[in-house]
C-alpha cells in the first residue's frame, strides 16, 4: 500500500506540474462541449430553393409563397430556365429546383391535371429525401386547397383518409442538444482517459525513466495501478465538470440518477484505461502510441452510434459496435439523461463493459514486463 501511495503522489505531481497538460485536459474539452453541440443539428431548415416559374400565374405565385412561408425553404433565386437553375446547384447556391411549366394554371383548371417538376441535389441522400418529402407535402396541401375552392365537398369525407398523429417522447421539444451533449461528453472522457494514460507510460519508455522504475522492487500491479488511478480520478473529474456545463449552459438535468451515471462511468473508465495500458505495452514511442490510439478512437467514436444510427449500419459494422466500449457508454448516457433509465435497465451494458475491463486489464498486467 505504501508503495502505491508514493507512486500516486509521483503521478499527480507529474500531471499537475505540467501546465500544458492541465490546460489540455480541462480547457479544450470544455471549449468543445460549449461549441460543438450547437453545430450538431440535423433539423432540416433553410433548404436552398431555386424556382423556375414559366407560368407566372396567380396559382404559381400562391404556391411559391406557400412554400417560402413554410419555414423549411429559403428562396435563393428565381431562374429563367432549368439550365440556369442547374448551374445554381453546381455552385452549391441551391439544393432544390422547383420548375413550374408554362400551362400550369390552365392545365389544372381545364384538364383537371397539371404537372410540377422537382430536381434535388441528392449527394446528401437524407437531406434530399427529406427536402423532397417536405416540398411534396406542401404541394399536396396546396392541391387540396385548390380543390376545395372549385368543388364543394359534402360534409362527410368523400375520400377515405388516415390521420396520423405524432407524439415525441423524452424530448418533446425535439432539442438536438439534449441528444448530442451527453454523447460528446462521452467522447471527451474517452479521449482524455485513454490518450493520456497511453502517452504517459510511453513517454517514460521514451525518456528512459521507466528503467528506473523497473530496477526498483515495485511490483508490476503496483506500477499499473499507480498509472490507472490518477487518470481514473481525472476522468471522473472531467465528467463532473461536463455535467455541470451541461446543466448551466444547456439546462440538461439528467432524468435519471447521478449515481447511475457515475457507477457506469467508473466501470467504463476502468476498461478504457485498460485499453490505453495495453496499447502502451505494445508500442515503443509516443508517435506510434498516438497513431494507434488515435486510429482506434476514430473507429470507436465514429462507430459508436454517436453521430449516426447503429440500426442503419451493415451487419459486420454492427458486430464492431458490439465490441466497442464507447457504444455502451453513449447508449447509457442517453438512456439515463433523457429517459431516466435506472441501474436495472442498464445492467446488460454494465456487465459487458465490466467484462471488457477485466479482459483488457488482465491482458495489460500480463503483457507488461519489467525486463526489456
Amino acid at each position: 500500500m505504501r508503495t502505491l501511495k508514493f507512486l500516486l503522489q509521483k503521478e499527480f505531481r507529474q500531471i499537475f506540474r505540467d501546465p500544458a497538460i492541465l490546460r489540455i485536459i480541462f480547457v479544450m474539452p470544455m471549449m468543445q462541449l460549449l461549441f460543438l453541440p450547437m453545430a450538431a443539428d440535423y433539423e432540416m431548415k433553410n433548404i436552398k430553393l431555386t424556382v423556375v416559374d414559366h407560368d407566372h400565374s396567380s396559382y404559381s405565385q400562391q404556391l411559391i409563397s406557400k412554400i417560402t412561408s413554410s419555414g423549411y425553404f429559403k428562396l435563393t433565386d428565381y431562374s429563367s430556365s432549368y439550365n440556369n437553375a442547374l448551374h445554381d446547384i453546381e455552385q452549391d447556391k441551391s439544393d432544390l429546383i422547383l420548375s413550374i411549366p408554362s400551362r400550369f394554371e390552365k392545365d389544372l383548371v381545364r384538364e383537371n391535371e397539371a404537372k410540377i417538376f422537382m430536381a434535388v441535389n441528392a449527394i446528401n441522400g437524407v437531406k434530399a429525401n427529406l427536402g423532397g418529402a417536405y416540398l411534396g407535402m406542401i404541394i399536396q396541401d396546396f392541391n387540396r386547397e385548390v380543390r376545395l375552392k372549385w368543388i364543394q365537398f359534402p360534409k362527410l369525407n368523400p375520400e377515405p383518409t388516415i390521420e396520423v398523429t405524432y407524439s415525441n417522447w423524452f424530448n418533446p421539444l425535439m432539442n438536438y442538444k439534449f441528444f448530442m451533449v451527453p454523447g460528446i461528453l462521452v467522447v471527451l472522457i474517452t479521449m482524455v482517459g485513454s490518450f493520456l494514460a497511453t502517452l504517459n507510460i510511453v513517454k517514460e519508455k521514451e525518456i528512459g525513466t521507466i528503467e528506473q522504475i523497473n530496477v526498483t522492487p515495485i511490483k508490476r500491479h503496483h506500477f499499473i495501478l499507480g498509472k490507472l488511478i490518477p487518470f481514473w480520478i481525472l476522468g471522473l473529474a472531467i465528467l463532473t465538470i461536463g455535467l455541470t456545463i451541461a446543466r448551466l449552459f444547456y439546462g440538461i438535468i439528467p432524468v435519471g440518477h447521478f449515481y447511475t451515471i457515475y457507477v457506469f462511468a467508473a466501470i467504463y473508465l476502468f476498461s478504457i484505461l485498460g485499453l490505453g495500458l495495453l496499447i502502451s505495452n505494445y508500442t515503443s514511442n509516443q508517435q506510434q502510441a498516438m497513431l494507434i490510439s488515435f486510429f482506434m478512437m476514430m473507429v470507436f467514436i465514429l462507430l459508436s452510434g454517436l453521430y449516426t444510427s447503429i440500426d442503419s449500419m451493415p451487419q459486420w459494422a454492427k458486430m464492431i459496435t458490439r465490441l466497442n466500449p464507447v457504444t455502451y457508454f453513449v447508449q447509457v448516457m442517453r438512456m439515463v439523461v433523457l429517459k431516466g433509465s435506472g441501474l436495472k435497465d442498464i445492467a446488460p451494458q454494465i456487465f459487458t463493459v465490466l467484462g471488457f475491463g477485466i479482459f483488457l486489464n488482465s491482458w495489460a498486467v500480463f503483457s507488461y514486463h519489467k525486463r526489456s
Partner: protein
Amino acid sequence: MQFLSFVKKEFYHITRDKRTMFILLVMPIVQIVIFGFALTNEVKNSSVAVLDQSKDSETSALIEEIDASSYFTVKKQLNSYKEIEPEFKKGNIKMIIVFPQDFAEDLKHFNKAQVQLISDASDPNLANTMNSYATNIIMDYQNRINDGLKLPYRIKTEYRMLYNPQLKGAYNFVPGVMSMVLMLICTMMTAITIVKEKELGTLEVMLVSPVQPLKIVVAKAVPYLLLSIVNISTILLLSVFVLDVPINGSIILLVMEAILFTITTLALGLLISTVTDSQQTAMFISLTGMFLPTVMLSGFMFPIENMPIALQVLSNIVPAKWFYSIVKAVMIKGVGIGSIWKETLILTGMTAFFLLLSIKKFKIRLA
C-alpha cells in the same frame, strides 16, 4: 544537395519505423472502407413495435407494408399502453405504431381513421425522419385505396434526384472521410516529428549546423507529402472500385486539389509544431483541436446552414470545409475549375498564411 540529404534522413526516419509506416498506409484504407460502408445517416431497419388494438385486415396490411419497407423492421407486438415506456427505456425500440380500436370500421364507415406514431425522440433527427417516412408509407397506402376514385384538379409532382439517384450515403461520406483522413494524418504527423526532435534535443544539433532552418523544416514535410499522395491514390481507387463512387470530373484536377490540401495541412502541422514543445501537447492540439471540429464543422456530418451564425463564420477557418466542397464538386458533380476557383484560392491563401506564420514563429535560438 544538402537539402536532398535532409529529405533522405527524414525518409529513413519514417521507413525504419515499420509500425508507424504500416499504420500510416493502412489507416486510410481501413477508414475509407469502414466509414464508406457503415457511416450513413440514412434510416434503415429501425426497430419498431406495434400496439394494434384493432387487429383487422386493414391494420395487418399496413403493418406488413411498414415491415416490408427498408426503413423499418417490426420487432414486437405490444398489448397495452403500459408496455410502451419500459420498452423505450430498454432502448431497442425506436418507434411504436398505435392503431386504435375499430380502425377498419372507422375507415369504411366514416372515411376517417387514426394512427398514432409514438417515437423515442431522444434522438430528434431519427424521430423526425422516422415520422416522415412512416407517414409517407401510410399515405401511399391511403392513396392506393383511393386510386379507384379519380379526383379532379390534381397536381402531379415528378422528382428527379440529381447526381445520386440511389441516394447512397457513400456519395456524401467519401469526400468527407477523404478530407478527414488527409487533414489528420498530415497535420498530426508533421507536428509530431518536429516536436519530437525538439524533445529529444536533436533539433538543437541541426540548428547549430550551417543548414538554413527553413530547409530543415521543409525537408520534414516532403516525405509526408509523398506518403499522402500514395494515400490519395489508394483512397480514390477504393472509392471507385469498392464503394462505387464515380469520379465524374477531371481526375487530374482532383489530384491537384488533393495535393494542395495536403500542403495546407502540412503547413498547419508546421505551425502547431512551432508553438509547442512537447509531443503530448502537439498531439492534443492536432487531435482534439482538429478532429472534432473537422468532423463537425466541415459540413459532411451536419449541414453548415443549420448552425448558428457564429459557427457558420467559424466553419470558414476549417480547411477541411473547403476541401470537402471541392471534392464533392469535382468528383460527384463533375464540374471544372471554373466552379471551384474560389475554394482553391482560399486554400492557397490559408497555406501561405500558415507557412509565413510558422516561419516567423520558428525560433532558431533556444529559449
